[in-house]
C-alpha cells in the first residue's frame, strides 16, 4: 500500500501547473520548451499512477511513447530555436516581428 490514487493525480496536476506557469510567464524560447518538458513529465506521472491503480500495463506503454514524442519534439524545437536565433539574433518571442510593418 503506497498512497491514495488521488494524491498521485494531484501531484501530477501540480507539476503540470508549474509547467503551464513557466510557459505563460517566461519570455525566453528555451524556457518555453522547458515548460513543455515539465508538463509532459506531469502527464507521465499521471499515466504511471493510473497503470498502478488498475494494474494494467497500457499506461506504462503510453509513457514509453510519451518519452519518444518528447525526444522528437525537443530535437526539432531546439533546432527551430537555433534557426530563429540565426535569423533574428534574439531568443525573445516578442522580437520576431518581421511580418509586422
Amino acid at each position: 500500500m503506497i498512497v491514495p490514487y488521488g494524491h498521485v493525480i494531484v501531484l501530477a496536476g501540480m507539476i503540470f501547473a508549474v509547467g503551464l506557469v513557466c510557459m505563460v510567464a517566461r519570455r525566453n524560447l528555451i524556457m518555453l520548451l522547458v515548460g513543455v518538458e515539465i508538463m509532459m513529465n506531469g502527464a507521465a506521472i499521471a499515466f504511471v499512477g493510473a497503470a498502478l491503480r488498475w494494474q494494467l500495463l497500457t499506461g506504462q506503454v503510453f509513457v514509453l511513447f510519451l518519452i519518444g514524442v518528447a525526444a522528437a519534439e525537443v530535437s526539432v524545437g531546439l533546432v527551430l530555436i537555433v534557426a530563429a536565433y540565426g535569423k533574428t539574433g534574439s531568443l525573445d518571442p516578442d522580437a520576431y516581428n518581421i511580418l509586422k510593418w
Partner: protein
Amino acid sequence: MTLYGAGFYLLGSIILGTAVLAVTRRNTVHAVICLIVSFLGTAVLFYLLGAPFLAALEVIIYAGAIMVLFLFVIMTLKMETSSEQGTSMGRWGPAVLLGALFLILIVFMVIRDPADRVPLETALAEPTTFGRFVFQNYWLAVEIISLLLLVALVAAIHLGKGKGEQMKEDEP
C-alpha cells in the same frame, strides 16, 4: 503511513520544489540543472510506482539526452540576460492565476470522486513482461514512433544544415 508512502511524499516534494526552482531561475543553465534533479526524482518515483524500465528510460533519455541537448543549445547561443524586462507582477500574476485555477479544478475533481481514495497496491512490471506486452499488443505504435523519430532526425539535420551554409555565404 508506510515507508513507501513517506518515500512518495518526499519524492513528490523534491520533484515539485526543483521544478519550481527551474521555472523561477533567471539563468537558463541553472534552470536546466534544477530540471535534471527533477527528472531524476521522477525516475525514482517511477521505480516506486512499479515501472523500473520506465525509470531507466527517464534517466537515460530525459535526464541524460534531452537535458544535455538543452545545455548544448544554451551554450551555443549568446544569451541576453536582460531580455526579460517588464513588470514582474504583470507577467507572473496572470500565469500564477491560471495555474492556481487549473490546480483548484484538479483538487476539486479528486475530492469529488470517491474512487480516487483507493490506496494503491505495490506492484512491479518486470522489463521482460513489459517488453513482451509492448511488442505483442502495440507493435504498430512502435513502428509509428520510430518513423516519427526518423522524421525529426531528418528535420533537425535539414534545418541545422541550412543555417550553416547561410553563415558560410555571409562571411566573405
